[in-house]
């Protein structure tokens, strides 16, 4: 399942990059379905990066400091919610600048 989510996520990023929002609705629907299946998908792009975030694997460019931000997300963070308990299913792979 994580592989399917990753592919959808990649597709989403690609369409956004090409300024193509014609399929946003369908992507939203797919994300909604993932959510009802108990997957919480987090795209941390733009967030400031803290070393304490153990849900991402960061590739850090240059110096890591308070201004460091997540500039690119290669794979999203996926949590799985089961019986109201949340657990990390996949670490995000990100680039931090």
């Amino acid at each position, binding site marked *: 399942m994580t592989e399917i989510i990753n592919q959808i996520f990649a597709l989403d990023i*690609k369409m956004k*990059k090409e300024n193509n929002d014609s399929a946003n*609705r369908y992507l*939203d*629907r797919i994300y*909604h379905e993932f959510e009802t299946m108990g997957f*919480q998908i*987090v795209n941390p792009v733009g967030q400031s990066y*803290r*070393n*304490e*975030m*153990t*849900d991402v*694997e*960061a*590739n*850090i*460019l*240059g*110096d*890591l*400091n308070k201004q460091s931000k997540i*500039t*690119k997300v*290669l794979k999203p*963070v996926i*949590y799985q*919610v089961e019986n*109201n308990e*949340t*657990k*990390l*299913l*996949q*670490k995000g*792979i990100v*680039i931090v*600048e």
Partner: protein
Amino acid sequence: MKTINFAIDLGTTNSLIAKYDDGNIKIYNNPLGLKQTLPSCIAFRGNRTVIGDKALDYLEKDAENICMLFKRKMGTQDTYYVPSIDKEMSPIELSSLILKELKNFVNDEESMTSVVITIPASFDTIQSNATKKAGYMAGFKEVVLLQEPIAACLAFANTSSIEVSDKQNWIVYDFGGGTFDVALVEVNDRELKVTDNLGDNYLGGADFDNLIVEKLIVPFIEEKLGIANLWKDLKSKTTNFKGLYFELLKIAEEAKKELSHYEETEIELDIDINGDNFFEQFVIKREQFEDLIAPKVEQTIQFIQDVIKNNQLLNSQIERVILIGGSTYVPLIKKRISEAIGVEVNSTIDPTSAVVHGAAYYAGSKPASVSQDVLVVEKEEDTVDFKLFYEQNTRDLEELITGKVASDKVSGFRIMRKDGGYDSGVKTLDDGGFSEFVPLLEGRLNLFKIQLLNSALDVVKIIDTISINQGSYNVQGQPLPNDICMEVDDLDASATRLEKVFAKGSILPLRKKIYKTASKTILQQSKSNLIINIIEGKSKGLPSSGLSIGYIEISGKDLEEDLIKGTDIEIEIEVTESRDLKINVFLQSCDQEFKNVFSESERAISINKINMEINTVLGDVEALIKTNNSEENFEYSQQLETIRVGLIETQISASLINDDDISDAKFQLDDRKRKLIQDFDDLTRNKLIAKEIEEYKDTKSSLEYHLNKEENERYQEKYARIIKNEREVINSGNKYLIRSKIKELDELYDAIIQSSDENFITYFLNLKFCTEFSNQRRADKLFKQGDQALEKQDYKSLRHIVYGLSALLPDYEKEKQRNFKDDSRTGLS
């Protein structure tokens, strides 16, 4: 006799922990993250110590405060000076920190006193003793060492059940991410012994990834863009290609994995170079990859041949080669070894966990010499006094946890989010307390665990009760005074009902997307319509009893294409803080969107709709009056009569105004209508629900009668499943829920009845009391045939006769469905 059971693979780059449990091996996952492996790497950041994955973050920025690969220095005088804490750290101390972190992988209730730790075959006595010392420093009372190749052989032998009767020579080939080792192991019926080993500390799978980038990807980009020196530029510190090197390494790693399974793989590059987007694909064949890595692989083959030669053996005297280490997934390795040595190459065991796996087997067979009671003295953790302060409910994505600890024993703390998404690392207390901002996962209950540690970083106390709810206000924020619902069709009951969108008490603003299917086809230009009616009121009540706060009619003439039954309808509903309602409807089959914003001051009301609703309720009121009159329940029917008269008056007034009337007459009417229907609802709801519950119980008991028969035992399981949440359903006070349960029971009942012809006897006898047959003459004839069949015990024929009689009975359901006319439906289901 108690055995050691726990085993640790204390690796140069990665470490693992496992447990032997009654024949099974459990390898523990890092609770922070998902991997079994813990990178053997530690970052010292002044008052904070980070161990494992996250320590790697500081590799570039702060290399002097990062310690890794210290296993290579075990048993030497060398120490690592760490400027940020102004302290010399010995490889033993560093290793003990890794061991302590691995202990964290194991559940808190497990007490670990004894452990097996693996060491390379090349470790001498001093190095071995250093490893033992690290184990004691980490709090173990007993440390047993085991050589890694032996552990690998044990893992192999125990999973493949091989009988070894005479002396054999095995080779263990260990090709990891950063190191390479080869060991010659002598095996006989009693023992395993490492006789020789060789290795290279700077040869690993990471070299393969770099080769793919350097020799395949970079030349491709250079050629396409007509640039040069890209490889050099990528790795330079002052590069223009920020992040590209990492991105390409990731792509290369993926390609490497693909090529372990497939003959070729396609690399897709979608990257930014000098501000321009570069989007190209190209194919890498396995051959190309193999040509690339062949020299490295040959190097490793040479090591095997050297080991064999050094021990005066011939290739033919080697029984098998066992592959471990992540890089051995590459098929070329297996192929080249079997070509060069000419023996069976075994890759059945998991290359990453084989060592810890085998070590755990060993631990499971090795008696522990330290008993549990030695530890009792140390169980004084509950004496630590502490106080915590934090918000339990918040809308922020970060929250402050503050703590005060009144104990001299505690000098550090560590906060972890239980889902694995956050770890503060080990930090020192500041003036007996701490304050830490923790990130929260949106819309969820976030659970945290705090460890209090002493100066040797041993856990003294675990606080396990912290939960912070993200997404709810503590005090401020406007709650909804009523449920907000949407009217949808209930095809089973042939009526419409309310579906809750937002529950009473939810905090504004609210937003939700609902996905529905069209329950009818609406042709272009037809008069048929789709109704989106958003209602504020009790979700358990009748749709017409609530206040309609947003109403959209989409009719055939609004459509650009036909709306087909069964296609998706997406409805986005938003209530802002100022209580504006926004509805956004998207019809998938028409690819058309309708937007509407309502604010309470301009309520949209349709006379048509008022009329329709009154008609529906009026029918029910009249039917109820009739039954209550016949039951001589006059007081009750008088109350109903008042409602009936009120409804009719409202209807008459409604017929006197036009739909485009601009006075507030419409609103007055709507208010009156709602009031009346609410009265009706209140008067009947409890009765209705009581009736449904009664029916539920009846259905259940008649079903149980059949279930208790021996031949129906196989239905028990299904029955148990249906009634599992019975109490919840009955207490819900929601008749639709109860109804759906009854329906499930009915279906099971039918299935049981139809499984045997004899069950139709009772049916047949019951039918004799019916008087409502549409064709009495035909019914009489069937009864006569039935009696004969009964006499002859011909139950099969009886069954068909029952079917025939049932067909003559009036079908109330169909009748009701016919009355559920198109224009009283919303078109949503």
